Every structure is written in structure tokens, then in C-alpha cells.
């Protein structure tokens, strides 16, 4: 077999490994039910860079660096690293921006939604239902011919190296505790596994996810559009393995109230993830997948990632992000505006082609 990881056993293996590693990262110091969370960790990086000043969520997360660089190294090795781009950049930025607003209303990306569930946080069920609903709306547009247009191989190969270089720069700033960087002294931002372990785990997952095309949004989208359960089997393996490891580590605690880094406002858990799911579906990948694609030289995915970084900054600066106390003062506005924005993009990018 040319690529084991693209087979059914392969994707199940990858999902299981990510789930186990996520639980271990939590055991080693990452925040509860947040062994891995692409949205939260990018938000922490935005904070560390001073793009927002929420003092409890500022840290350069080595997992993000590892994911992107792991994908870069593996795709380079397997000759899949291809600098490319030019497909609706500003739209992708905006989708990333609002995807982050939605994720921070719910408090997590799809990866964390499943990890929260695996840790017994039943609010995650509401979030996942919202995610499915958002993706469903996205597939309606896709079936009607929604399309962001083609990317083209970039003539300037350098474009594909920019994100990997930024990641190396972030790593250096973290290792040498670069003065202008903000590091949380308390709160989730102060909770982290040892740097080297986080980095290595990130690299491993980045490599595995690159080979297997692991994508949480895609797993649900493929079921809706083609009744293909391939990616979904990986996501199920991910959730189950994290659940089992949480039982082993005593990290499982079932309930709605008092869950760590979560709130139990069902409507906003649902709508926050609806917004994210819709934005991911329109952009073609969950936040994890967008990082992996960035590592492969996909500059369109990189623009989405930067959009998420920008969204995180605005989310906290404009009091749109939730906290365990509930949603932010303007969280509801951000969510509604985001959903309206995504619907407009969905309608306006339909080309005449039906399925």
C-alpha cells in the first residue's frame, strides 16, 4: 500500500494516537479538557504576541508550532510540499476570523469539542450538534455550486515557506523567553505541558495528520455529501481513545455544570459552533486541517489561520469571548454577525452548477 495512513485502518490509527496524546498532554499540564485545542492555542499565541491583553490566556503553544512544522517536514519528505495560493484570500481570512469568534463563544475548536465530550463535559454535545448544523448549512451551499475558486501553484516558491519560518520564529521567542512576549502567570495560559514534550507531540500529530488528511469538519461533511464515513471513523477513534485515557488518568467527570473552561449556556454553545462549522465548511477544513495544509505550502489555508489569529485578538479585545461565567458582553452580536456574514458569502459564491 502506497500510503497506509490514507486507509481506513490508517485513519483510525491516527485518530486514536491523537486522542491518547491529547489526554497525556492534559495529564502533563495542559488545561483540563484542553490537551489539544487549535482555536484556544492560537488564541493563546495571539495573547502572547500582545494582540489581545486577556492576561489568563497568553502563551506560545508549542503544539501549534509542532503541528505546522510536522506537516511541513513530512510533506517535504513525501514530495507533497507545494507552494500554492490565490483562491479568495480575503474571504478565507474573514471566514477564519469569524470561525474563531464562534469557537471562542463555545470555548473550543472541533478537536476540543470532542475532547470535552471525552472528559465528560456534556455541554460539548450541544456544541457538536451546532457544529453539525453549521456544516450542514455549508453543504447546502456546496451542493448548489458554492466554490472559492482555484488556487494556482505560486511562482515565488518562497510563499510556501513563510508560515514554517514564522513557526520557527515563534519557537525561538518561546525558548529564549523573548522580552516583549506575554506569558500568563495564572489561568489556562499558565497551564502547559513541558515545552519539549508539547513540541514533539505537535510534530508527531502534524506528520500523522498530513499523511492521513485527518479533518473533523470533513468527517461530518463527507457523511452528508457522499455518505463516506472514512474521516469520521478517525474522529470516533480520536474521541474514544481520549475517553479511555481520561478514565485511566481520572480525568473524566460527567455533567453540564462546573465543567472546566466551559459554560452551560446551551443556545450560545450551539450557535457558536454553528458559526464555526459553517465557516470551516465554506473554507474547506477544520482549524487543525488548515494548519496542516499551511505546512504543505497552501497559502490559502495560511490566510485562514491568520484570520483566526486576528479573530482571537478581536474576540478578546471586543469582549466577545466566553469565560466559565458565560458569554462575553458582545459575544451574541459577534455570533449573529458572523453567521450573517457566512450566509452572504455562501450565497454570493455560488456558481451555476448543481449537484
Amino acid at each position: 500500500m502506497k500510503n497506509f495512513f490514507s486507509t481506513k485502518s490508517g485513519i483510525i490509527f491516527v485518530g486514536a494516537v491523537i486522542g491518547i496524546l491529547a489526554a497525556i498532554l492534559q495529564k502533563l499540564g495542559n488545561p483540563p479538557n484542553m490537551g489539544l485545542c487549535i482555536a484556544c492555542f492560537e488564541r493563546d499565541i495571539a495573547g502572547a504576541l500582545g494582540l489581545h491583553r486577556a492576561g489568563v490566556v497568553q502563551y506560545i503553544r508549542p503544539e501549534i508550532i509542532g503541528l505546522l512544522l510536522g506537516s511541513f517536514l513530512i510533506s517535504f519528505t513525501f514530495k507533497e510540499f507545494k507552494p500554492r495560493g490565490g483562491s479568495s484570500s480575503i474571504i478565507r481570512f474573514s471566514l477564519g476570523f469569524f470561525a474563531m469568534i464562534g469557537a471562542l463563544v463555545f470555548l473550543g475548536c472541533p478537536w476540543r469539542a470532542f475532547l470535552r465530550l471525552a472528559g465528560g463535559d456534556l455541554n460539548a454535545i450541544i456544541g457538536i450538534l451546532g457544529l453539525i448544523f453549521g456544516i450542514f448549512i455549508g453543504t447546502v451551499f456546496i451542493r448548489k455550486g458554492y466554490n472559492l475558486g482555484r488556487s494556482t501553484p505560486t511562482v515565488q516558491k518562497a510563499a510556501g515557506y513563510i508560515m514554517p519560518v514564522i513557526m520557527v520564529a515563534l519557537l525561538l521567542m518561546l525558548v529564549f523567553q523573548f522580552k516583549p512576549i506575554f506569558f500568563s502567570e495564572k489561568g489556562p495560559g499558565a497551564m502547559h505541558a513541558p515545552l519539549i514534550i508539547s513540541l514533539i507531540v505537535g510534530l508527531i500529530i502534524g506528520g500523522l495528520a498530513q499523511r492521513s488528511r485527518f479533518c473533523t469538519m470533513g468527517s461530518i461533511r463527507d457523511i452528508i455529501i457522499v455518505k463516506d464515513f472514512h474521516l469520521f471513523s478517525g474522529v470516533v477513534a480520536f474521541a474514544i481513545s481520549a475517553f479511555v485515557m481520561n478514565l485511566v488518568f481520572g480525568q473524566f467527570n460527567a455533567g453540564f455544570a462546573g465543567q472546566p473552561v466551559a459554560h452551560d449556556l446551551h443556545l450560545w454553545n450551539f450557535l457558536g459552533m454553528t458559526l464555526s462549522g459553517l465557516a470551516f465548511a465554506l473554507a474547506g477544513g477544520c482549524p487543525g486541517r488548515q494548519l496542516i495544509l499551511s505546512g504543505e505550502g497552501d497559502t490559502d489555508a495560511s490566510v485562514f489561520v491568520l484570520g483566526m489569529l486576528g479573530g482571537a485578538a478581536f474576540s478578546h479585545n471586543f469582549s466577545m469571548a466566553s469565560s466559565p461565567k458565560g458569554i462575553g458582553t458582545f459575544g451574541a452580536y459577534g455570533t449573529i454577525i458572523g453567521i450573517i456574514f457566512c450566509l452572504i458569502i455562501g450565497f454570493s459564491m455560488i456558481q451555476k452548477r448543481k449537484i
Partner: protein
Amino acid sequence: MKQIDTRGLSCPQPVVLVLNELRNEKGEFEVLMDSEASCENVKRLLTKNNLKFETTENSEHIIYHVKR
């Protein structure tokens, strides 16, 4: 022969275009792809529909010739 050009299209467009062809047309066709991920996805769709295809490959792209 009819050709479906999926080069540069992001997920799930390649699969959607092939699915569209399978549902609405009857003849043979070719799918032109430029990424491994697209190939794997399209291959999975074709295999699921019990369709046979031949592969042509060069450094720029991969073509599946789908027989029906």
C-alpha cells in the same frame, strides 16, 4: 473524452465534481488532479461506486480514466 479539471480546487470540490458527473452523465470521463489528497478522495468515491479506472501520471498532474 470529457475531462473534469480539479486542479487547484480545495476540498470537497474534486469529489463534488466527480459525484456530479456520476449522477448526471453516463459516459466515460477523465479526472485531472494535482494533489494526493484529491486522488485519495476521488479514488474512494470511484471504488465505492464499483468503477474501474486507469491512472496516467506525470510530474504536474495525475489523470484517472474512468470506464463505464
